[in-house]
């Protein structure tokens, strides 16, 4: 949140706001928010962890799903609903520093 304010003060490019992202992630929680959750279709594997991922990478992935460059059906449907701002905010909430290598 503080980082968002600082970014805004310096007129930084629309870095998303993690607090807003937290309000917008209801479509994400059910799969990405549950430890051990697996996809069921078309293949079975653990839903990828996104906590601590580069925010810009998350945005790029969501855009790729929205555009159809990546083909996971559920992700495409969800990304279709998200505006660029939604994507930035959600990515800011999930992203940020992953714990340093031990």
């Amino acid at each position, binding site marked *: 949140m503080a980082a968002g304010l600082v970014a805004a003060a310096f007129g930084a490019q629309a870095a998303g706001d993690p607090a807003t992202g937290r309000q917008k992630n209801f479509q994400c*929680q059910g799969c*990405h*928010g*549950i*430890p051990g959750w697996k996809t069921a279709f078309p*293949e079975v*594997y*653990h*839903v*990828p*962890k*996104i*906590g*601590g*991922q*580069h*925010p*810009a*990478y998350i945005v*790029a992935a969501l855009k790729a799903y929205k555009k159809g*460059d*990546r*083909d996971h059906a559920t992700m495409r449907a969800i990304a279709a609903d998200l505006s660029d701002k939604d994507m930035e905010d959600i990515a800011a*909430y*999930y992203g940020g520093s*992953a*714990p*340093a*290598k*031990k």
Partner: protein
Amino acid sequence: MNPTTLKTLRLLAVAVATTVFAGSAIASAEAGKKKAEPCKVCHGEGGMSKSPEFPVLAGQNADYIVAVLTHYKSGKRKNPVMQGQVANLSVRDINDLAAYYASQTGLMVRY
């Protein structure tokens, strides 16, 4: 002993032997670490990528990494750089790499 007992014992012996020697079939994070040398360039030391262009891999779920690398290999997921990288990876390589990155600290589940 009767034939059924003998058959059961033989089956049990095979099962035990398979379990004992199964270690070699399980993916090795240690082997994966060596195989991850070319990956470090983009994905960083231990999968802690410094650039948003290349995702953090540290701590990612192993079976997800296996799925993604397999998709790059089959062309189901398109990325010219990654396609080149996986071309020479065997199934064993993919599983070892996945085990290595999964064993690192990094990504987490966030609700």
